[in-house]
């Protein structure tokens, strides 16, 4: 019988959790690209990737090998240090925010409580906002350091876009925060357990905040799409105007890093939408203990998958906004709506006590 000190156990648990989450996340990112190509292809009546593996399932692997083997080209006039720094910064920041996302309730193994979450910060939500707000630098600096016209435009556009939509993003979730009364993501999910009761009558509707904060959710998700630079708000990389936007001059693995951080940010934003408005891991739980432990994780992943599918669906459906439309939507529509939502929510909370 080997006994470990508490510290060693903690370190081992944390290490295993980080490794597992990273593995799942990287696989998830890889297969999101596959899913995107497949779904968009089917929307456009094509087959999509079909050659590498059954239904093109090994396509992400082939893409990865291709990215690694491609020649890495750097523009002659580029600012070398920042040109190198930008993709790594984006990559690290994108993966950092997953550290506070709770995937499920957790269980106890030999007396050690194990949470399905790398760390439960009591300001978890703000931590994610802080990390995303730093993500702007990756794009802005990539655009600037390439020392080329189109990337510079792309970088400027995206920083303006991200600063504008960060406001609506932050304000949209305040209604939820007021109702749950905590900034810890685990706490917010726990506040959504059970069913809605209206005047003592059980409605059998899950106690998710989407039913009372639909406007908050609408503003949050719109702003989140803009924040992750996706269609219909993908102006920073609008191909028809800017070649490739901020990553025009990037090639090989550095380009792949931008790509991966974009998809990771999509996953983070979907996780956050699930946690804040769709009850996180809550769902029908039944069966033996082992199923009871892992079923919540399945519900969480299913909800996140629905959001990812929605992202891709939108890409296959919607045209791109014009830049002035984008700005006026953010400042003149989403921001006032988010503020009004906060006002109404706080009045109602004060009314009901």
């Amino acid at each position, binding site marked *: 019988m080997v006994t470990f000190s508490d510290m060693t156990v903690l370190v081992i648990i944390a290490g295993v959790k980080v490794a597992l989450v990273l593995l799942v996340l990287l696989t998830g990112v890889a297969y999101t690209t596959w899913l995107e190509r497949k779904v968009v292809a089917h929307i456009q009546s094509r087959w999509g990737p079909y050659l590498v593996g059954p239904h093109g399932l090994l396509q992400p692997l082939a893409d990865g090998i291709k990215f690694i083997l491609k020649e890495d080209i750097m523009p002659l006039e580029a*600012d070398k240090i*920042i040109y190198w720094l930008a993709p790594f910064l984006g990559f690290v920041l994108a993966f950092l925010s997953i550290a506070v996302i709770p995937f499920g309730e957790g269980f106890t193994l030999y007396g050690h409580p194990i949470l399905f979450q790398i760390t439960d*910060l*009591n*300001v978890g939500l*703000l*931590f994610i*906002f*802080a990390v995303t*707000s*730093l993500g*702007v*630098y990756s794009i*802005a*600096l990539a*655009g*600037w350091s390439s020392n080329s016209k189109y990337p*510079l435009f792309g*970088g*400027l556009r995206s*920083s*303006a876009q991200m*600063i504008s939509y*960060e406001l609506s993003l932050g304000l949209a979730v305040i209604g939820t925060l007021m109702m749950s009364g905590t*900034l810890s993501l685990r706490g917010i999910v726990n506040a959504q357990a059970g069913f809605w009761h209206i005047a003592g009558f059980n409605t059998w509707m899950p106690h998710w905040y989407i039913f009372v904060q639909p406007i908050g959710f609408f503003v949050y998700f719109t702003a989140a799409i803009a924040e992750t630079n996706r269609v219909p708000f993908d102006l920073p990389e609008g191909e028809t105007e800017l070649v490739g936007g901020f990553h025009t001059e990037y090639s090989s693995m550095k380009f792949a890093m931008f790509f991966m951080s974009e998809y990771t940010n999509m996953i983070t934003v979907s996780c956050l939408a699930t946690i804040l408005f769709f009850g996180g891991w809550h769902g029908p739980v039944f069966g033996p203990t082992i199923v009871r432990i892992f079923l919540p994780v399945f519900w969480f992943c299913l909800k996140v998958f629905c959001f990812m599918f929605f992202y891709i669906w939108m890409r296959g459906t919607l045209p791109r906004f014009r830049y002035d439309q984008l700005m006026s939507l953010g400042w003149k529509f989403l921001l006032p709506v988010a503020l009004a939502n906060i006002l109404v929510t706080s009045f109602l909370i004060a009314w009901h006590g």
Partner: protein
Amino acid sequence: MSIFFYIFAAITVLAALNMVLQRTPVYSALSLIVVLCSLAGVYLQLGAEFMAVIQVIVYAGAIMVLFVFVIMLLNAGHETPSHRSHIAKWLGAPLIGAFLAMMLMVIRDQFPATTGAAPAHLDGSPLAIGHLLFGNYVLPFEVTSVLILVAVLGAVVLAKKEF
């Protein structure tokens, strides 16, 4: 625990020095971002998670983005060293020394022989800070918000003049 303090403190000081000595404006701005983030690291060790995160969101994530934005728009190149005046050359170093000595004396008087551990009676949670901000310090808070509003209005008036 304190090893992290020394790491963050060293990063802060080095980045601050780099910010002042750097000739390229973008590098200076980036060094300032590093200073702000590593200061947030120091706050974290004092148990002030909320302060740390807000520091990153407000300063590193919002204000410094605008700095970098302007530098990028102006495409500011290398700074050209100007010929400093003789007074600055001879008085600069002694004045900095005097200022540092004064600061150190004030700090020593304020916190006599602390062990370096975080004060246990301080609560850095959002709840506690909110109660302080909207309770004890509500007047300074509101005055600051009016000040910012005035600045915003001033900016709008200045920008609108041409129309």
